[in-house]
């Protein structure tokens, strides 16, 4: 990436500067969607910038949600969403969508099975 001479540097930048001003992600990602670094991401060869390196490291161990990535990077949620969506499009990250429990959407039996797993997990706490 070649940055123009006028590009802001340092930490006092507007939040969306790291997305080059883009506020719309390539992919809608839920708050609680889980993100995992792929083998391509881990190889480190295809990374474009400091933020991408941070995200690849963050999601290289245990799974992290979009909300966790935003919180740990101290960037607004919308910024994390654009960054993660770009990296997912480049195959650097895998995004695992959450199971939705809306009353009128999704497969009812899948939802019920998952709820039972959540319930027994909570009882084991």
């Amino acid at each position, binding site marked *: 990436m070649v940055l123009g001479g006028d590009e802001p540097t340092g930490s006092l930048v507007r939040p969306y500067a790291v997305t080059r001003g883009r506020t719309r992600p390539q992919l809608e990602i839920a708050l609680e969607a889980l993100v995992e670094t792929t083998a391509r991401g881990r190889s480190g060869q295809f990374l474009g910038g400091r933020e991408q390196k941070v995200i690849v490291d963050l999601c290289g161990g245990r799974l992290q949600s979009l909300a966790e990535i935003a919180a740990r990077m101290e960037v*607004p949620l919308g910024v994390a969403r654009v960054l993660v969506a770009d990296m997912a499009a480049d195959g650097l990250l*895998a995004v695992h969508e959450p199971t939705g429990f809306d009353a*009128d959407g999704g497969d009812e039996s899948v939802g019920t099975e998952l*709820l039972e*797993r959540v319930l027994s997990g*909570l009882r084991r*706490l």
Partner: protein
Amino acid sequence: MNSPADTSRVTSAKIVIAGGFGVGKTTLVGSVSEITPLTTEAIMTSASEGVDDNNLVPDKATTTVAMDFGRITIDQDLILYLFGTPGQTRFWFMWDELVRGAIGAIVLVDTRRLADCFSVIDFFEHRKLPYLVAVNCFDGKQLHDLNDIRDALQISHDVPVMYTDARNRESTKQVLIKLVEYVLSMRRTRTVGVH
């Protein structure tokens, strides 16, 4: 895309913790979360129309909304998140994203400020999101009869109302269990209703 890691479906779920400012949402999240509650800041751009009586200004308003959340690993491939909603009840647009796909919600109540949760309850009922009411007992004092609280909130008799101590892990755990049991029982009723 045949990644060998994808043998089982990795997924997540969320429960929303709502309630007025200072009622103990973050304390409740922290009592069961495996991580110290994190805060994320969402920059919200919304038309100010209808939010403020600020109709003279036609352009958009930008607000930063902070929410706290925690995490419980249920299984290697299933993670539950608890999201505390912003205390300010006017950020409906934020709640929309928070409640989408959620298992349900816990409305945490301080009996000294019952009115703080009216708008939250209205919102969940409108969105058909299952919720229960957990009355936070500050200093362990159970000052009110639960039925009185139910009457004051004007909620249906099906909605569970219970005491909790948001600081106590076991107490929070029981509230979460109750919510999931309630959601499951609603599903079973619905299934029976179909036949």
